[in-house]
């Protein structure tokens, strides 16, 4: 078994997209300057590993999928950090995460992850803003969930209350479809 290894730290990789698209080439180009000890190791250049794989990251729908995944992870981190900092009860955060995962599943990842915040009563607030549409969900410590919609342009409002353990109601699904997904 032949093994080729190269490590380097604190290099100046600061651009994400080119790095992600083609970072194996970046690694190779950095090799000469950063690791003179292994520059003679040309086998890596000739290995062909991943070089021929067509990258797909440049297309718009693809980027959206990536951004949604990143946003979802950041939402998870936010909830977890809030629990660890004792800013919110674990059960409330867990309920909030379940609500998001239900929505993600219902809308097959078309719905972006929400912005999130913590309210004065220990509730977690999810918000989406798209043009004149504002949609929010509040997840309260008592297991109550409040859904609220506001149209900034027409002042139309809509509300719906539910329990955390229930599935997302058809009324809520329809409201999100029409207002945030424009379906």
């Amino acid at each position, binding site marked *: *078994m*032949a*093994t*080729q*290894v*190269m*490590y*380097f*730290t*604190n*290099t*100046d*990789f*600061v651009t*994400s*997209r080119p*790095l*992600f698209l083609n*970072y*194996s080439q*970046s*690694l190779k180009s*950095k090799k000469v300057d950063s690791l003179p000890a292994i520059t003679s190791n040309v*086998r*890596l250049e000739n*290995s*062909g*590993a*991943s070089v*021929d*794989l*067509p990258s*797909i*990251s440049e*297309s718009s*729908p*693809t980027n959206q*999928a*990536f*951004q*949604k*995944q*990143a946003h*979802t*992870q*950041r939402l*998870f*981190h936010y*909830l*977890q*950090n809030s*629990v660890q900092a004792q800013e919110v009860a*674990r059960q409330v*955060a*867990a309920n909030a*995460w379940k609500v998001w*995962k239900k929505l*993600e599943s219902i809308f*097959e*990842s078309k719905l972006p992850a929400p912005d999130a915040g913590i309210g004065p009563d220990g509730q977690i607030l999810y918000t989406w803003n798209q043009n004149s549409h504002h949609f929010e969900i509040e997840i309260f410590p008592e297991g109550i969930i409040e859904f609220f919609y506001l149209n900034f342009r027409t002042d139309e409002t809509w509300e719906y209350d539910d329990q955390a353990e229930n599935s997302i109601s058809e009324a809520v699904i329809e409201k999100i479809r029409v207002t945030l997904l424009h379906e």
Partner: protein
Amino acid sequence: MVSHHPSYPNPTIREVVCEIHFKLSDVVSWDPSWYSQFFKQVEAEFPTFEPVIVPVLFEITQASGSGGVTHSIPQVIRYRHRTRNVLLQLSENRITINILPVYPGWQQVSKDIEYAWRKLNEVMQPATVIRLGLRYINVIERRSAGETADHWIVPNHYLPAILLSSYPGFASQVVTRFDAENRIQVTFTDQFANGSGAFIFDIDRIVERNIDTKIEQLLQEITLLHDNIWAVFQSAKSDNLERLLQGEL
């Protein structure tokens, strides 16, 4: 044949790439009309297609005074699934299946590979498969700008501890050959895209030899690649990453 691995509700897989290189028989040459014939075969599931702009690196050589530029621009046509984040990419003697978030699990991925290969065989009849690649790219968002990777990843044969405790702006690539035909390339690096940036954990497994074109044989080989990739990922996964994958707060 489908291997059984845990399926996570909150996967960190950003992209799965399965690449099948094949060879036609000696008496058959590549026919550009196959791009449209293939589209007709997959149109019900993949109703849109687009040509892909492939960046080409030109290499200018001045050998023996002859000089000149040698290059070729590969043609790639991309077919996009009507509802799911799945792409097929067809180019000369190669089909690629790209699975984008949210990762649907290995069972679905293997079905997508089988679908693509069967449809391809309805248009052309490859004589043999000469190379198979399976690549899993995981992306883990940093919780804060200075977070080191050791919160999520534990050292293994491919990832040394010093890398995982590095200040942001690091990269590592390990290429290992099991034998003349089999290799695995593990890349671990970070990026500074949005906010705090993210860690990229890229495992690329490739086999290069003549493989039977029967779908059962092909899936058996690809499943083995998947098993190898899973073993690398599993050995690098920390308890914190397990919680993230499970969505446990």
